[in-house]
């Protein structure tokens, strides 16, 4: 057993952390998320071309650094610490994960584009009626000659306004909630018939409702087997789930550090409020949640390659624990800051908002407890 990072992994973390310290302070972030497009494209370009960061999790043969899930976790944790809105999760973790799993011509063509920073991919999987069920799909892709015709409505697609490509789940057969008949497609985001309604999200990012109105897509947009895509989708969503847990670890660490700092400055009754034992114990409890979130993220990351049931149980344990921890740390950070904590002025409230969105992303604590129970605690 070994829980240390390799030299390369330490180097990735240090490089990224220095870059973000220079480019991504809170005020700068607030400025660019308030622009019309809601982002600064130069940062993505720099991540790709100056730092080579978008290749950290790809094989050397594709021009990457030869890493995988651990490298993704490192990047996501650092992005969490600065409330990064960069679309690393949908582009590298999710689309990259799907391409690596599928391999072949699609991977050869697309992975270099991702590494170079030319492609941004948004993951269009959720639907208004689907909640966290990945197979609950009304969107259909009907066979049409060599290609398909895509129709349906995808909800809250993070990063869609910036995307060059969309990774879309759709039904090629079966009924609305069948496990069979689900397929995965990687398509150009500008195809005729794709209609977007863009909006900001509460955590500072951008997302869209996407309507596919008889969109003609080519046959080679299909990733993996037609109708047998659900296991692949479950796998990449599990990878994404652990990656947001890594992001949560970074967010939670900053919530905790910010609270420690604030309580040592803020005085009441003539002393810094950090001297009050009741607040000290609360901050210790927050610390323990941060440490356990870090432990669970490592556990989940290291179990991503196990057989599906073991992987799913581990990922659900990880997400359930991290979601509860993010809730606890976020709410107590705000409470401890008092009135100033509920304003837009301080960074702390923005970390709280991201922590809160992560709680529900790819399934709430209750959703994941339920999945864990079905796998581990069968009657």
């Amino acid at each position, binding site marked *: 057993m070994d829980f240390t990072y390799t030299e390369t992994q330490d180097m990735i973390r240090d490089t990224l952390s220095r870059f973000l310290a220079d480019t991504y302070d809170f005020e700068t972030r607030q400025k660019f998320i308030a622009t019309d497009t809601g982002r600064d494209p130069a940062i993505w370009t720099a991540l790709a071309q100056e730092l080579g960061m978008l290749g950290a999790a790809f094989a050397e043969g594709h021009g990457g650094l030869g890493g995988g899930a651990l490298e993704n976790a490192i990047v996501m944790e650092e992005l969490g610490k600065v409330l990064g809105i960069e679309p690393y999760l949908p582009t590298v973790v999710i689309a990259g994960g799907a391409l690596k799993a599928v391999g072949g011509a699609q991977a050869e063509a697309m992975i270099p584009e991702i590494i170079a920073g030319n492609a941004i991919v948004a993951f269009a999987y959720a639907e208004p009626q689907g909640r966290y069920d990945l197979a609950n799909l009304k969107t259909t892709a009907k066979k049409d000659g060599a290609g398909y015709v895509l129709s349906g409505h995808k909800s809250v697609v993070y990063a869609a306004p910036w995307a060059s490509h969309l990774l879309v789940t759709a039904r090629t057969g079966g009924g609305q909630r069948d496990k069979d008949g689900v397929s995965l497609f990687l398509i150009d985001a500008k195809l005729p018939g794709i209609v977007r309604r863009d909006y900001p999200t509460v955590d500072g990012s951008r997302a869209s409702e996407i309507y596919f109105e008889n969109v003609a897509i080519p046959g080679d947009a299909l990733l993996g087997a037609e109708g047998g895509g659900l296991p692949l989708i479950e796998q990449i969503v599990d990878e994404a789930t652990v990656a947001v847990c890594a992001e949560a670890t970074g967010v939670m660490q900053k919530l905790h550090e910010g609270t420690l700092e604030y309580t040592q400055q803020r005085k009441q009754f003539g002393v810094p409020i950090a001297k009050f034992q009741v607040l000290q114990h609360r901050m210790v409890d927050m610390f323990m949640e941060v440490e356990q979130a870090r432990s669970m993220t490592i556990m989940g990351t*290291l179990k991503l390659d196990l057989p599906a049931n073991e992987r799913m149980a581990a990922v659900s344990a990880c997400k359930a624990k991290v979601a509860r921890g993010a809730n606890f740390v976020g709410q107590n950070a705000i409470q401890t800051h008092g009135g100033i904590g509920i304003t837009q002025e301080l960074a702390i409230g923005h970390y709280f908002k991201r922590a809160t969105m992560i709680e529900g992303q790819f399934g709430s604590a209750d959703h994941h*407890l339920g999945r864990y129970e079905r796998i581990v*605690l069968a009657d």
Partner: protein
Amino acid sequence: MDMEFSPEDLAFQKEVREFIAENYPAELRDKQDEGEEMSKEDFLSWHKILYKKGWIAPAWPVEYGGTGWTPTQRFIWSEETARADCIRLMPFGLAMVGPVIYTFGTPEQKAHFLPRILSGEDWWCQGYSEPGSGSDLASLRTAAVKDGDDYIVNGQKTWTTLAQHADWGFFLVRTDKEAKQQEGISFLLIDMKSPGITVRPIITLGGEHEVNEVWLEDVRVPQSQRVYEENKGWTCAKFLLAHERTGIAGVAASKRGIEKVKAIARTELDGDQPLIANAFFKRKLAELEIDLTALEFTELRSLAGPNAGKGPGPESSLLKIKGSEIQQRLTELTLEAVGHYGAPYFRGFGEGDNEHPIGPDYAHRAAPTYFNMRKTTIYGGSNEIQRNIIAKMVLGL
């Protein structure tokens, strides 16, 4: 990073598993299965088997009789002994005073005491707590006054675990009343058969005689039995407490405990289905198991992470807090699982007793264990004190 065992570790695991299967005493297993209270001989029987094998002190340096195992091997060892439900080894000699003696003791103290701890010849008890001091250990009042080559010790200790069996005790005593609280304390090794020592039982909620009061009246202790410098006993005390805390995370034992609750919940009926199908019970079980996984990986990070080998630091307080809370929730869930049969009070077979206890075997100890385990958040420095330690030492508050 990886969490796989190496081929060497897997071979070690197999060796350990086979050793336990072949050598763990069957009569001890029977008594455990019947839920009986353990005698001194029961505790010592497994100790002596491990001593003969050379596996009694995995945490000790090799020169004093340790095994030289890696942290991973020690982890495997604790997993395997818990999995096989082996009786716990008394920590007072092996995990507590032993490390203090080999770290701070004189050559004579090491030569005399360490082999006797390993062989199980001496049973040790701990004389730390006093009435009125609780987790504020440094407020202790038991006094040792010099008289020639000896100290004369007077005072009262309490919560002294299994002192009724003890040959020796390690005591914190005040040797300078004028000094600031923590600076006038010394660490003494005292022969429990010394004139002036009285041990009185305290019966706890579960009905067990596990702890005692110890009275010391003009007890004569040679100064050669003081470990480390006079008035510097707090150094030994802190060292020992940090060692004690890593032991009480109890991950392997709690994993075994969860398997037992699951087995009970699959047997007990709730309506026309097993209890484990009850959504509320299942949810509590899932959360407990996930929290235990989080504790396990936090412990593994401290064992096999970048700070491995640097000894227990203040982060051991985290393991103590979470480990003790999980142990308590586990006993609470077990009691809930056994339903009505948590109520009958059964003290185990006495000599010549042939009446079978009431209810299923797994229910006999559910309530006493639940009551008993309330201690885990109190002893070894209460969880409130552990939070103070993290606040000060880790968070810098």
